[in-house]
């Protein structure tokens, strides 16, 4: 098996696990609960690679064609 990091691929934006405090601040700005965020499956190859657990939230830094850079949040679900 050839080993490589998925995160290097040009189609895959940066995923990072958010800390409790960051998450709280984000949920407060949008005035929503964690469950209302878009979802990402725990079997997702990128989630497997960064080792996020179900219930955590990942911050995705997308390279947006319109905004340059955009943040997106996904709730990890089992």
């Amino acid at each position, binding site marked *: *098996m*050839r080993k*490589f990091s*998925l995160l*290097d*691929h*040009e*189609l*895959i*934006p940066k*995923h990072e696990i958010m800390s409790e405090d960051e998450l709280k601040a984000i949920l407060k700005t949008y005035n929503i609960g964690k469950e209302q965020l*878009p*979802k*990402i*499956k725990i079997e*997702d*190859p*990128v*989630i497997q690679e960064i080792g996020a657990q179900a219930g955590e939230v990942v911050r*995705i830094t*997308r390279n*947006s*064609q*319109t*905004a*340059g*850079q*955009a943040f*997106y949040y*996904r709730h990890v*679900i089992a």
Partner: protein
Amino acid sequence: MSISEPTIDSMIESLDLPLNIKKTLKDDALKVGVTKKELEDIIERVLESYDYACVEPCEAVGVVSAQSIGEPGTQMTMRTFHYAGVAEINVTLGLPRLIEIVDARKQPSTPMMTIALEEGYATDRDMARVLAWEIEATHIEHLADITTDLANMQLIIDLHEKTLMQRSLTSEEVAERLRDSLDVVVTVSGDIRNQIVLTPNSPSYRELLQLAKNIHNITLKGIEGIKRVVIRKDGEEYTLYTEGSQLKEVLQIEGVDVTRTYTNNIGEIYDVFGIEAARNAIITEATSTLAEQGLTVDIRHIMLVADIMCSDGEVKQIGRHGISGEKASVFARAAFEVTVNHLLDAGMRGDRDELNGVTENIIVGQPIKLGTGDVHLISR
């Protein structure tokens, strides 16, 4: 007197603007050279126009997207196949391809890969060729003439030396592969060069004919499912284009640049690279399909479609088995397709409709929660 870069930075950094706008603002301010007062004025004006350009709350963005993609869709060709510019590989384009994308088909009708090569392989045509043979599936009919010898109950394979050399195979290797995949006696002929003789275990005509048929299905070399590989020079680099797509297997091959290899099969991208890559692939594919037909659709509409398709962590189609079919409201689902079934099932289950969405409120004749309809006055 113009101000210095750090001052501009400190003034722009804290603004609530997208990165692109901040960057342009900074670059232009540096280029032109502005005073503090002027920059303050500019920033104020930029903030004002940005605010003006933003979508209003309660705007029906989905409907606008649907129209913006649907209208150019009517002008697309209905013809399915088209030889696209990319190295005489046949790809589905136009309306059929767009439908394929929004339907989130597991397998597109013409899967295709673009394989970027790593340094060392990318600039050397011979190395690229070797990799291409490594990837393209080789079957027996590419290499040999097959004769069915009914008198001796044998299958005689005459391998062409030249093609063997080209694909860097030997007759022993071919025999080995055949031995592994078929349950027959395989002998490499001693007196005639490059001849392999297959003898079925039991001497029956049926088995012999079956064998003659089965032998075509064996992949001797390369990746099963990749029918053809074309090498093309893009700028300085050689890139491989394939007919058929096997992302997972191709990424395992030494010399393939993992970071830039792409397939038009969105389902495969989702399996190998995850949901965010799938979303990007949907956007790329949809935009290029539209652009190829000379239609320009604002990318934000396509981004909205891609986002909604990927919001639940898997690629869902727009339609009965996806977005529209999973709406919470019975009325909204009934208004879309198979009306009677939805109403009947809901009646039998005793479902409730909370009348939260747009469709169901139109059906019952209430103001909808869009635009001014979603504004409420609260007295304090």
